[in-house]
């Protein structure tokens, strides 16, 4: 089993899924489950082939530890989400097309992570972009797919420019060599660095490219949002990683102005990541739709990942890499649980739901653990990665970035709690009183992801050991791992011990809950009204306008999307002008233009 076979079989699965879906779309969806599980298992087993190279047509692949790590994260997102596919086929306009594109994009991501040269990387990257764009359009918003594609294209074309420019200078496309020769061209190096990382920034959703994320993740078919948020943004993280490792940014820029040891171009990118954290957090707090809220949280977490990766040091980098796993798992689990609720209630608007904990307790548990991880609270994995990132920032003395990181962490608690209280807690709406929990087939992936969240939190070293390998491969000093602890210069973390302490706390609270008297359940509309008539259930839900005072603080914040609209309008105007000036019908104008041109040429030609 080699990588070629994995990719080819995945594509074969994609075609097979399409054909089977034409006959029975549920069966086709089951093929996506089979295909993604196949890829997951085989790539996991490729562990032993790490270090080898392989080619197919003009694609060249290189099995690196980094690629293996990233692709496992991606395939986990794809395979777990695939379990939900069969139940959503009815809603899709092209079930067969969806299944085909689902697996095709998966095969594309494999090509990206294992690419040896930039042409391979770019070909598979773009394949993922257009196949996911065609899936997003099947959801609630066509505009979202369009914006997604355009911003992705801006990033991709910038990266293509960087790749070709580097090729023109160094003569090679091989990832590990293409940028090494740029040390002698400082001016070009900056241009290439900025344009190259653009695709990564656009994909992760870093400010100012973040505008596509909320609409795309929020409106995509419910079974694709977990993949988008948990998986595809990590492709951007991969490019960001390449931009400081394959492109030896720290070396090339070492003579440039730097802030606390970080060269300015890199610091600028990290600052953009910090702005994303703040912007994502604040926007998430405002949202009324659960999926859009989670999408903004992906923006914020993307900022964390970017900052961690770009630090390229012992501790912060490990935190960034770990956060990739944690966020992928938690985000996928959160989106899946919202999808499960949407499957039963038909909506993701938080104001229309309530009290689902009584009807769907397992889904509630999945969501709860996911958000504990996202907020960075022990004993879940998110705590470990954020702890590492904070350590790195603090050690380096990066005050601004550290402040935004802490702010993002606190703010994340605010926004993740909102769907919890709005959707699951509180009183149940009458129309939902008969809803049931989702079936086992949908519960299975959610439980797996929850267990993974716990695993990363209680035994983080399982994953960190791989990160150590990656760090060594890139020549960094790896994070120090002892038995079950992570040792840093500021102290150590024994995650298992933390888990035990939390376990005790939980046990005590549980005992108290069981002993004490239960509260009396009251129906939503059974409330004191001073003889007023009440009819709007939504307004009475206790999470309505939850954070109104806080939101009022930044009500008037500027909207980046308006910038893009203005740019589009300007291009439209430019087109109008070009059309009337150059492509008009009146021959007289053309004749005059030509005569003018000829005259100018005669005069200028005579002079020259």
């Amino acid at each position, binding site marked *: 089993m080699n990588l070629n076979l994995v990719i080819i079989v995945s594509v074969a699965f994609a075609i097979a899924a399409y054909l089977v879906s034409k006959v029975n779309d549920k069966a086709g969806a089951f093929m996506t489950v089979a295909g993604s599980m196949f890829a997951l298992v085989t790539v996991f087993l490729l562990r032993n082939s790490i270090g080898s190279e392989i080619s197919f047509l003009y694609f060249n692949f290189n099995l690196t530890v980094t690629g293996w790590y990233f692709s496992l994260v991606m395939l986990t997102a794809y395979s777990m989400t695939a379990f939900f596919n069969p139940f959503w086929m009815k809603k899709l*306009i092209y079930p067969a097309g969806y299944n085909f594109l689902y697996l095709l994009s998966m095969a594309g991501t494999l090509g990206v992570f294992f690419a040896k040269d930039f042409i391979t990387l770019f070909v598979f990257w773009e394949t993922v972009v257009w196949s996911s764009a065609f899936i997003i359009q099947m959801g609630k918003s066509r505009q979202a797919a369009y914006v997604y594609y355009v911003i992705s294209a801006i990033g991709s074309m910038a990266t293509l420019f960087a790749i070709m420019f580097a090729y023109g200078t160094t003569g090679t496309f091989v990832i590990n060599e293409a940028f090494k020769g740029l040390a002698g061209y400082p001016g070009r190096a900056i241009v290439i660095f900025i344009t190259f990382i653009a695709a990564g920034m656009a994909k992760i959703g870093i400010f100012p490219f973040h505008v596509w994320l909320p609409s795309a993740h929020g409106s995509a078919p419910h079974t694709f949002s977990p993949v988008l948020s948990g998986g595809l943004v990590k492709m951007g993280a991969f490019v960001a990683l390449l931009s400081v490792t394959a492109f030896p940014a720290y070396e090339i820029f070492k003579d440039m102005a730097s802030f606390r040891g970080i060269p300015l171009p890199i610091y600028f990118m990290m600052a953009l990541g910090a702005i994303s954290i703040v912007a994502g957090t604040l926007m998430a707090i405002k949202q009324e739709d659960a999926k859009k809220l989670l999408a903004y949280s992906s923006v914020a977490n993307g900022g964390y990942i970017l900052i961690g990766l770009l630090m390229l040091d012992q501790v912060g980098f490990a935190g960034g890499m770990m956060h990739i796993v944690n966020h992928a798992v938690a985000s996928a689990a959160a989106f899946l649980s919202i999808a499960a609720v949407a499957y039963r209630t038909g909506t993701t608007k938080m104001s229309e739901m309530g009290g689902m904990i009584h009807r769907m307790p397992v889904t509630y548990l999945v969501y709860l653990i996911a958000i504990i991880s996202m907020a960075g609270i022990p004993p879940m994995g998110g705590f470990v990665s954020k702890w590492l990132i904070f350590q790195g920032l603090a050690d380096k003395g990066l005050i601004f970035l550290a402040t935004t990181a802490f702010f993002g962490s606190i703010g994340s608690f605010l926004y993740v709690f909102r769907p919890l209280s709005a959707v699951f807690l509180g009183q149940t709406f009458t129309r939902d009183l008969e809803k049931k929990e989702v079936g086992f087939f949908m519960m299975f992936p959610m439980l797996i992801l929850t267990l993974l969240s716990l695993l990363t939190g209680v035994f983080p070293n399982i994953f960190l050991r791989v990160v150590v390998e990656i760090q060594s491969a890139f020549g960094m000093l790896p994070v120090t791992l002892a038995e079950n602890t992570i040792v840093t210069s500021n102290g150590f973390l024994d995650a298992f011990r933390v888990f035990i302490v939390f376990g005790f706390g939980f046990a005590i609270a549980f005992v108290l809950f069981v002993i004490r008297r239960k509260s009396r359940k009251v129906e939503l509309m059974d409330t004191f009204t001073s003889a007023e008539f009440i009819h709007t259930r939504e307004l009475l839900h206790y999470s309505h306008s939850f954070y109104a005072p806080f939101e009022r603080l930044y009500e008037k914040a500027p909207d980046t999307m308006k910038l893009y609209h203005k740019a589009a309008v300007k291009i439209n105007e430019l087109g109008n002008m070009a*059309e009337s000036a150059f492509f008009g019908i009146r021959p007289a104008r053309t004749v005059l233009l030509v005569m003018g041109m000829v005259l100018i040429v005669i005069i200028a*030609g005579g002079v020259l």
Partner: protein
Amino acid sequence: MMINPVLLIAIPLGLAFIAVVFKKLQGWILAIGVAANAFLVFFVEKGETAIGGFKLPFAISLVLDDFSFIGVILVNVLTLAAVAVAFRKTEKYVPVILAGLAGLNGMVLTGDMFNLFVFMEITAISAYILSSEGRKPEQSFNYLVIGSIGSVLYLLGLILIYGQTGTLNMSLMAEKSALIGQAAMVLPLVLIFAGIAVEAKLLPMSGWVRGVLGNSNALTGVMFASVYSSAALMVFGRVFSQVLIPGTTAGVIIIVIALLTFAAGQVSAFRSKSLRQVLLYSSIAQSGLAAALFATGFVFPAVLVIINNAAGKMIMFSTAGNLEEKYGTDDYVGLGGAFVRNMPAGVAFTIAALSLTGLPLVFGFYAKLNVLAAYLNQGTFFVPAVVLAGTIIEGAYFIRILIKLWAPGKEGEWADADQSVGEKKIFNPAGTVVVILVTLLIILSGFLPDSVGKLVAPGGGLLGDEGPSISLTMEKGGDQ
């Protein structure tokens, strides 16, 4: 068994006259003529053939070298495809199409500058008549006027060159014109440029395109955008890369005009709401790009762009023309969901759009890479930046159209097949087959680009371009 290249011109021309006489057999005559040409094109004798028994360099000659071989394949095969897809629409235009085919072959094959003028006129006349199909007399008249102006300017330029070099034979003129000073060449060069620019859709002679292509049907759209366009651009390439190589002044003028055409075409396409308008402006933009590449001496990428554009536009214009015929509109907002029950047409159109944007896994990517590499190898990065900016815009408007045509539905609701404009089949079975074949070719050459590269490179090498700036099937390591 090698045949004389004259047959490629004589057969369609002869059949055109026969078709006038035997009106009832027109369909058969057209089919035979077009198929025969497409078949014979692979058996033509290479080299320079003198016509009429005179000796070179005084004779009119037909040159089949590696460059014109590509041109002649494109012209004949694409005409066959165009006729096959829209056979029913060729009813009244059989002699015109055949005569036009003869003219096009002549344009690409000829080795004599005045003969080129003659064939350009024949082609132009067939084009004017074809454009009248759109029932917009004012637009056809406009085309006629601009075309005539262009021809006159071309003739003027040719006279000046003839006066200076004393010959009309292309290869001889190439030698002689190299000896003349640049200043003397600027004016004739610009005049000849203006002449060829009409059919090649370059500024400032492209005022006719909106009216003519905007009202075309599946047949005429494909003929103009694929067949005539490719021939005109190949002629442009021949003239400006081999015969009259522009010096610095004229070269800069031509390149600037060509890039301006590219940029103007892309932004105009972006604001267009009508499907055919978007496509025609995209064609203008691609022409501008090819012309800029030719004028810089990058013949290989230019030919790739031409092939890519021809194949893609063939699919897209036939789809657009059929959509307009079936639904009465080509406003793509009003055509929402037209692909819902039309998978083959939809997939073909999508692949064509992706190829024109230059997305990977299809041929257009190879073309785009070569365009960028040609400039960036030299260290110029302004032009690649313009090309990439244009690509973003092109991708934007194509994706907008694709999304509209594939996924009908109100914003805020899931895409719903019931909201589609209709379920009429876009292509008849024959058309579907042709379109799928072209699509498969585009995909296949996307996976095996070097095979195409090897076919095209000798033509490029002939005109001074050393060949692909990138080789994609690389030895281990992934570099050239």
